């Protein structure tokens, strides 16, 4: 890379909302690529990694976490104003995360039960994805995100090309790896057919059914999969829990979990 280009390295900022920090850690975990990333961009704001906090505007903003407080709802507006390109990373930011399970419950009751001094707690009734609040340029799925997909997304954004982030099913990745289908060969309940690829079919490669960490694939037929899970002996409660994971509030999974409750 020429020194001329280095001077105008794009400035990146990483912001956290309601989340476990695991997706930010995926960036730090990209050990082989981290130095190249730092060489190609200027890390202007990334409290998880450095105390240096430079002011905006930023070329690329990565947002982890969902919006769960009034403060979050205001702050995301400010983050959006500061970032030319806004990319949300992980199931919390793209679907509301595991904390969206509160969306079916009475949050006030939780607060009364959990906190000794509930009067200090100010929270929204729903955990919602970032895109419900501000326009988002790209949503990178996963719980956590895949570091290779993150590096690919950053590389593509820097090169001005379309990122190779497929939206088809986990099954395609699974079959490309020459895995034997655990649903067909062993009757294991697996969300792979309705879940977006990106993890490299991690769980099915280790004899576990897909948990749906990457959220609904492009055209998920959750009704057909629900029928299939019933044939495999799953109860309505089990099916509901399967869809109410990290991406429970993604509308297709949300609808599927509510449908099977009704039946």
């Amino acid at each position, binding site marked *: *890379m020429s020194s001329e280009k280095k001077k105008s390295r794009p400035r990146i900022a990483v912001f956290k909302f309601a989340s476990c920090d695991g997706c930010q850690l995926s960036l730090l975990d990209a050990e082989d*690529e981290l130095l*190249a*990333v730092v*060489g*190609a961009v200027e890390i202007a704001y990334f409290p998880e990694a450095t105390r240096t906090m430079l002011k905006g505007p930023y070329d690329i903003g990565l947002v982890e976490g969902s919006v769960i407080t009034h403060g979050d709802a205001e702050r995301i507006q400010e983050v959006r104003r500061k970032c030319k390109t806004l990319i949300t990373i992980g199931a919390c930011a793209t679907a509301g995360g595991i904390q969206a399970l509160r969306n079916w419950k009475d949050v006030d009751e939780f607060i009364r039960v959990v906190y000794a001094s509930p009067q200090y707690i100010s929270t929204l009734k729903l955990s919602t994805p970032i895109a419900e609040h501000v326009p988002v340029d790209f949503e990178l799925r996963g719980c956590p995100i895949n570091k290779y997909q993150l*590096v*690919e997304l*950053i*590389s*593509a954004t*820097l*090169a001005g*090309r379309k990122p*190779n982030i*497929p*939206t*088809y*099913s986990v*099954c*395609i990745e699974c*079959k*490309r*790896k*020459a*895995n*034997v*289908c*655990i*649903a*067909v*060969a*062993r*009757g294991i309940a*697996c969300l*792979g*057919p*309705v879940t977006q690829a990106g993890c490299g079919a991690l769980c099915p490669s280790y*004899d576990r059914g897909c948990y749906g960490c990457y959220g609904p*694939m*492009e*055209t*998920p*037929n959750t*009704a*057909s*999969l629900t*029928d*299939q899970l019933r*044939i495999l002996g799953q109860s309505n409660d089990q099916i509901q829990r399967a869809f109410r994971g990290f991406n429970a509030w993604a509308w297709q999974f949300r609808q599927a979990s509510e449908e099977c409750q009704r039946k």
Partner: protein
Amino acid sequence: MADRNLVIERRHFVLPASEIGRLIAALARRDYEVHGPRVRDGAIVYDHIESPKELPVGWTDEQEPGRYGLKRRADDAFFGYVVGPQSLKKYLHPADVRLLSAERKDGTFRILNNETAPKHPYAFLGVRACELAAVGAQDRVLLEDKYVDPVYKERRLGVFVVAVQCTQSAKTCFCVSMGTGPRARAGFDLALTELLGNGSHGFVVETGSERGAEVLAELQAAPATDADLHEAEAAVEGAARQQVRSIDTTGIKELLYQNFEHPRWDDVARRCLTCANCTMVCPTCFCTTVEDVTDVTGDHAERWRRWDSCFTLGFSYIHGGNIRNSSKARYRQWMTHKLASWIDQFGGSGCVGCGRCITWCPPGIDITEEVRAIREG
């Protein structure tokens, strides 16, 4: 590759079961990398084979729509199963191939050495008639059409095939109706029929090429008697009689071309997951996509070719949008191409009747039933 144009005198021998190890060794000595059936993860898959102990001795498979399971046999058959989830497509038309890599240095860029061919030619052991028909279908598309696929060609040429004649069928098999099996008639160097009757365990071997005859000459083979040939013939006929599924291929092209708006497409769309498993396991589906990737610095780039599927939205994306948004349109496209427009395109059916798309479809969509439903109006 057994040269399909070369007519050689077909000769039949008998081979004791104990000779299978020497067959594998004879192929390895000739610098082939031998791949054959092996039990892994609850299924019989293709894998590297060095010893007969690695073969699925005493195992069989049971298949139904959306179901596959292994079961112990009462005997020690080496090839007492039907077809697994994988086909030779895994080797000859691999799922992921790096087409090129390039680097930028000092203001210029260059294409790097991109040798991807396997070091040794493949020898495949246990190849079924439907599998050979599928290789024939892929040959037609990737080798014998106007444009030759170099990736396929460098893997395909020089392949040694030891076929195994089916002596049993799965519930999902329908090769008889597709005219592709259960007997393999061409495309092999050697074809084995495994016989376990009368307390003896052995093979009737048919030579399909001079190379095959040369390999066989190194083994303890004796000429087959008429009785041996009758027994082998009866065993294969038994497999044909077991088949419970079929597609009536009479006028199938016209049938499907005239039924684009049949209500059955809506019915199947309700069940179809658009997960693409059928296309991944299909031994003839050949569609791929190409991905260009760069690293963070932009100094290295690679171009990858990967299996794609007509069940993805991206497959039919052209500028401005996707042309097959509904799963109905995608299933119809797949089945109509496989059974009808393939005939216009390549002069034969794209379906070989192996039944993999039925077994490995999680909701068990059955292509033979879909055809029947459309035919019945």
